[in-house]
């Protein structure tokens, strides 16, 4: 008699807990609760805005935070690592409030921004900044183990050949980190796409072309639920889930 694989059974049940609500939502959104509003042109624009702003935020994370991830991988710095986790640990509306305060006339920096015509409230720039702040810790946490797994012998060899630590990072580490960076970028982008709390404060809608009056997708779904009820929200959610699943498949393809 075949023995029951308890580990597989428990894992399957845990996976089901995560997955069943998502697939029920897909079924409801394209089935019994289908509402044409859920796949209207407005939803398409919202998804487009979310995809583009999340991609830019992820790209900004790559440029600004790859050196930090490498530094943490090669230097034990508990305080630094804890500080870098803060934006991911605090309630995200606080991130939104912080951005608005910093960019407001209440602070010297805010006055300076306003004087040079930069506004972060209800703007694409504000949206991207909020998404970058909340998704950058995920990027750093994804890249750090990748860098830690890289063979340090390559770096020590380069340093022994007289290369500076910066030159070693640029010329030895980065050229061999493409797959890791792409994988972490997609994870960070997925995180940014699901963000709600901070962008509901900073950019509930965007008042700039080409997305004038468009809500980011998570905000639109919330708005549909608040104004129109479950049907429109569920269908729009199902559309967003399909986009997210496509991202996950892309991530798997990159990893393998």
């Amino acid at each position: 008699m075949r023995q029951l694989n308890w580990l597989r059974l428990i894992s399957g049940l845990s996976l089901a807990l995560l997955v069943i609500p998502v697939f029920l939502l897909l079924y409801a959104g394209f089935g019994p609760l289908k509402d044409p509003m859920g796949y209207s042109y407005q939803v398409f624009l919202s998804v487009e805005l979310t995809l583009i702003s999340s991609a830019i935020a992820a790209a900004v994370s790559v440029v600004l935070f790859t050196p930090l991830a490498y530094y943490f991988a090669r230097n034990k710095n508990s305080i630094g690592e804890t500080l870098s986790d803060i934006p991911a640990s605090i309630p995200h509306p606080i991130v939104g409030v912080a951005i608005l305060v910093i960019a407001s006339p209440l602070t010297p920096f805010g006055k300076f921004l306003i004087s040079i015509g930069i506004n972060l409230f209800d703007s694409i720039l504000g949206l991207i900044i909020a998404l970058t702040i909340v998704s950058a810790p995920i990027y750093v946490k994804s890249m750090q183990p990748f860098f830690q797994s890289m063979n340090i012998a390559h770096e020590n060899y380069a340093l022994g050949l007289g290369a500076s630590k910066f030159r070693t990072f640029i010329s030895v580490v980065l050229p061999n980190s493409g797959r890791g960076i792409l994988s972490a970028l997609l994870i960070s982008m997925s995180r940014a796409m699901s963000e709600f709390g901070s962008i509901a404060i900073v950019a509930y809608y965007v008042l700039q072309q080409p997305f004038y009056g468009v809500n980011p997708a998570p905000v639109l779904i919330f708005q549909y639920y608040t104004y129109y009820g479950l049907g429109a929200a569920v269908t729009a959610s199902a559309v967003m889930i399909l986009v997210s699943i496509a991202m996950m498949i892309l991530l798997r393809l990159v990893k393998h």
Partner: protein
Amino acid sequence: MIEAEVKKKLGSFTLEARVSDDNFVCLTGKNGSGKTTLLNLIGGILTPDEGHITLNSKTITNLPIETRRVSIITPDSCIPHLNVDDHMVWGAKNKGLKIEHDYITEIKTSLGIEFDGKVRKLSLGMRERVALATSLISKPELMLVDEALSNIDNRRDFIDAFKSLAAKAKIDVIFTTQYPEDSSEADHHYQLESGKSTRLF
């Protein structure tokens, strides 16, 4: 001339070793005797708890790796994404050294580098040859070769050629080996046992 008198405690293992010689130095010892630890201390990967290290009369004990003019070569040492020719001049270019094409050809011929392609796709033995050649061309004052001769065929001929090239460039070498017979190629031989060094000749 390398003068290293160092003490380092790592967990329950304590290294207390002394190396004071130049030219071609062989370091032997069983697994776990402290060979790699000693080379890592001289190379700057580890910092000694006590002691000092001088290279050609310059104290390098607490200098970062990149300023010691000490090259560290292990079986994993390479810059994987470069091709062979770019790899070989990479270190020299970093230092702004002008290297004659004839010198590169001499090194390639002497060390049996008759192949090209991306270094990451080479066999272990080929990679070790390229890593050693790259280090020679970059003209360090000392090369630390930690088991990086282990995958090279025709090892005796290779060691002869390598020793000759290092001597010509006035580069001191400390190499570790699992093969006791390799010590006959050396000018000096140290043996490590349980973290303690003994100079045999």
